[in-house]
């Protein structure tokens, strides 16, 4: 009797494994590439990826408090490590799926020069960046300004976006003349699509390692494992690269 | 020149007011009619609370409204008493009385002191309106309107919202106003009893139009009054108290044409009073009647006859000296008695209401 029920359960597990669904929390800066990758993923594996976009800090709070996410694509490498340590994520699963690139961008086609001299010259009222305390791209932006020695002079002009998407919105509407955002947000056909921008050299800030991790709710879920593997595959890497991220 | 000339035309959905009136500049004029007759609307037009599309209003030689002129309510020298006293809830009685007084530049014909005394509200001054009875509230409302020293007092059914007991409480004060105020009063009412007690002049209204207009005594004696009064058909006589019979507790009042006995209500001899005689209390006899319980029997002559509300009834106007009474008879008894103009008759009066 016990054997029979075990058999039925494993049969059910196999049956459902073929069309599983995975709940994914995606850092806002990775919105563009992930929308493309999820389509490919569904087509190639038959699994479905249900995506939520937002700030990593908010996702952390939600995951700790029982949100049903199975995979987190973080904007940093600290949050996944923290989640593993606290038992909310599966040990051994974190890996760097992309390394973010920072850009100083303006909707005005003339404002930002190719070497970022505008930071020293000034001539703007507001510089926007994501909250440095919580957003990796914001933190990177602060590091750049510190390295260049302009952090103190620009500090009164800083306006913070709640996350990298809102920061982009501040700049795109012209409310802030320029700001630090992710290259992935403005890239089009391998270059900055509109306005003007400065792709900040990687030596001016710590690498923005974006790690993915399987969360406790995704443990042993075939679709979660499949997604993690898919992110390491050629097709996904090509997409990630096309959005201006470095690869590991 | 010292009267009020009013012409208003007002079109509302379902109601039209169309009047052209000359009102006396003294005494109490009653705007009388059933509800919906337009009497309150007319009063509001006089006060400037309604602004009719076409209108002309002249008060004692001054234009308040015509094609080019519009005097807003707060600039008209009026006193206005609303149906519900409408006291300001955030002020006490004295605050209510002072409200208009502080803002009025016109001469204090009836000063605050006099108004307080006239309405008997001296003991209420510190009270808040919500602690007053309905009658007290209305007395304060009247005093408040008088305290601004108005040149005319407009009253919109000040007793209508009160029960009988409260009415009886206020009526004596209104009668005092009638006697003591030098300014004209326009008094809206649907109660024939109030009108008979208080008015000198009556404007009867129906369907937004004036249907009768004249001095009270003459107008009430008209048989062709176009508004239905039912049991209240009757006349009012101006009289003076002749003698008081202390043994029988009766008083004799004398009017132009005769005398009537009525219950003594303590009115001193020589005092001017008003007597109301309802048509239903008057009967006619062709011969001098046998002695009966009816005390008041007068000699008169049939003056004219008119239709009553009911086809079986008839109104007969009888001349007694210089005065007139109206009697209500059945058509059959009128026919049997051969009632016709010029016929001498004995007039028996069952009941007389004495109004101070």
């Amino acid at each position, binding site marked *: 009797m016990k054997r029979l029920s075990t058999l039925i359960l494993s049969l059910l597990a196999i049956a459902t494994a073929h069309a599983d669904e995975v709940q994914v929390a995606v850092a806002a800066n990775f919105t563009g590439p992930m929308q493309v990758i999820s389509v490919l993923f569904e087509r190639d594996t038959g699994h479905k990826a249900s995506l939520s976009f937002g*700030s990593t*800090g*908010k996702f*952390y*709070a939600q995951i700790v408090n029982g949100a049903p996410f199975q995979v987190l694509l973080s904007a940093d490498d600290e949050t996944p490590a923290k989640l593993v340590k606290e038992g909310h994520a599966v040990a051994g699963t974190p890996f760097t799926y992309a390394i973010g690139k920072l850009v100083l961008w303006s909707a005005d086609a003339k404002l930002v020069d190719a070497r970022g001299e505008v930071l020293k010259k000034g001539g703007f*009222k*507001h510089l*926007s960046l994501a*909250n440095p*305390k*919580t957003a990796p791209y914001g933190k990177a932006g602060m590091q750049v300004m510190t390295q260049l020695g302009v952090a103190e002079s620009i500090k009164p002009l*800083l*306006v*913070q*976006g*709640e996350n990298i998407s*809102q920061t982009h*919105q*501040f700049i795109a*509407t*012209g*409310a*802030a003349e320029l700001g630090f955002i992710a290259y992935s947000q403005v890239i089009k056909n391998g270059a900055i699509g509109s306005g003007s921008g400065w792709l900040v050299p990687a030596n001016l800030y710590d690498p923005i390692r974006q790690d993915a991790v399987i969360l406790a709710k995704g443990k042993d879920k075939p679709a979660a494992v499949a997604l993690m593997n898919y992110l390491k595959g050629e097709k996904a890497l090509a997409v990630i690269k096309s959005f201006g991220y470095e690869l590991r | 020149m010292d009267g009020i000339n009013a012409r208003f035309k007002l079109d509302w959905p379902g109601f039209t007011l169309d009047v052209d009136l000359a009102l006396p500049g003294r005494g109490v004029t009653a705007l009388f009619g059933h509800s919906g007759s337009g009497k309150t609307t007319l009063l509001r037009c006089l*006060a*400037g*609370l309604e602004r009719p599309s076409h209108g002309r209003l002249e008060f004692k030689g001054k234009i308040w409204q015509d094609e080019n002129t519009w005097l*807003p*309510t*707060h*600039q008209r020298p*009026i*006193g*206005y008493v*609303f149906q*519900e*006293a*409408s*006291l*300001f*809830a*955030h002020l006490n009685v004295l605050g209510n009385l002072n*409200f*208009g007084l502080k*803002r*009025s530049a016109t001469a204090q014909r009836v000063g605050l002191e006099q108004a307080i005394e006239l309405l008997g509200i001296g003991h209420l001054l510190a009270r808040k*309106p*919500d602690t007053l009875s309905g009658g007290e*509230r209305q007395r304060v409302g009247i005093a*408040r*309107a008088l305290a*601004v020293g108005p040149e005319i007092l407009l009253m919109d059914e000040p007793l209508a919202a009160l029960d009988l007991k409260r009415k009886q409480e206020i009526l004596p004060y209104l009668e005092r106003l009638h006697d003591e105020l030098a300014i004209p009063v326009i008094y809206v009412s649907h109660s024939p009893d109030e009108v008979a007690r208080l008015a000198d002049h009556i404007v009867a209204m129906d369907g937004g139009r004036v249907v009768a207009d004249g001095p009270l005594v003459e107008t009430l004696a008209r048989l062709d009054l176009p508004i239905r009064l039912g049991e209240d058909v009757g006349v009012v006589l101006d009289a003076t108290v002749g003698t008081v019979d202390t043994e029988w507790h009766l008083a004799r009042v004398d009017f132009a044409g005769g005398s009537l006995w009525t219950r003594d209500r303590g009115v001193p001899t020589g005092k001017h009073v008003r007597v109301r005689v309802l048509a239903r209390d008057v009967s006619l006899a062709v011969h001098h009647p046998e002695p009966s319980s009816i005390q008041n029997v007068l000699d008169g002559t049939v003056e004219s006859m008119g239709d009553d509300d009911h086809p079986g009834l008839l109104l007969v106007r009888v001349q007694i000296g210089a005065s007139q009474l109206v009697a209500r008879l059945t058509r059959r008894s009128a026919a049997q008695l051969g009632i016709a103009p010029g016929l001498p008759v004995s007039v028996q009066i069952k009941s007389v209401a004495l109004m101070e």
Partner: protein
Amino acid sequence: MLTDSDLQAIWLTTRLAGITTLILLLVGTPIAWRLARSRSWWKGPLGAVVALPLVLPPSVLGFYLLLTMGPHGPVGQLTASLGLGTLPFTFWGLVVASSFYSLPFMVQPLQSAFESIGERPLEVAATLRASPLDTFFSVVLPLAKPGFITASVLTFAHTVGEFGVVLMIGGNIPGVTRVASVQIYDHVEAMEYADAHRLAAVMLIFSFTVLLAMYTRRPKPARGD
């Protein structure tokens, strides 16, 4: 117990709510008066516009305010040409945004207070020689006092509780636009849960106290009998 930046956020929030309430008392009173008195065709549209912030997501209001007050928007160009700069990311920008966002909380209680007074006390005042303006101050204001208290308290509390719009146009600048609700959000985002708890508790107690005071206040009749 609270950090300096928390206290700064609370003081900023109080100032924002206080100034917004004052401005809305001045702006909202005539609007509420017109809405309560008028029978004209524009009463419906005006009432609907005033009520919009009740149903609009703060993100919609914040987005449009950002666009119109930014350097390319009509309001932004006006303020810039007046030498005032642009309003997003400034304290006065938040005041403008809060004034829109909290408008119904001022106008609607006032409107119903004015409506419950009715026509009669105004007519009485006119017959007692009071001009319309005089009537407003000597009769309407005292009779509508409970309505004014309710409206002011609701406006203040609602502005204190505002988050979405501030986030959209504030830029999270300490001492300028980082109000208490944003500060709490920041604490949560930064995983500083203990700090978030303390400030959140302050907000909770404030809001509850305000509402408790409102709901237990003895209702007074607002009309002259």
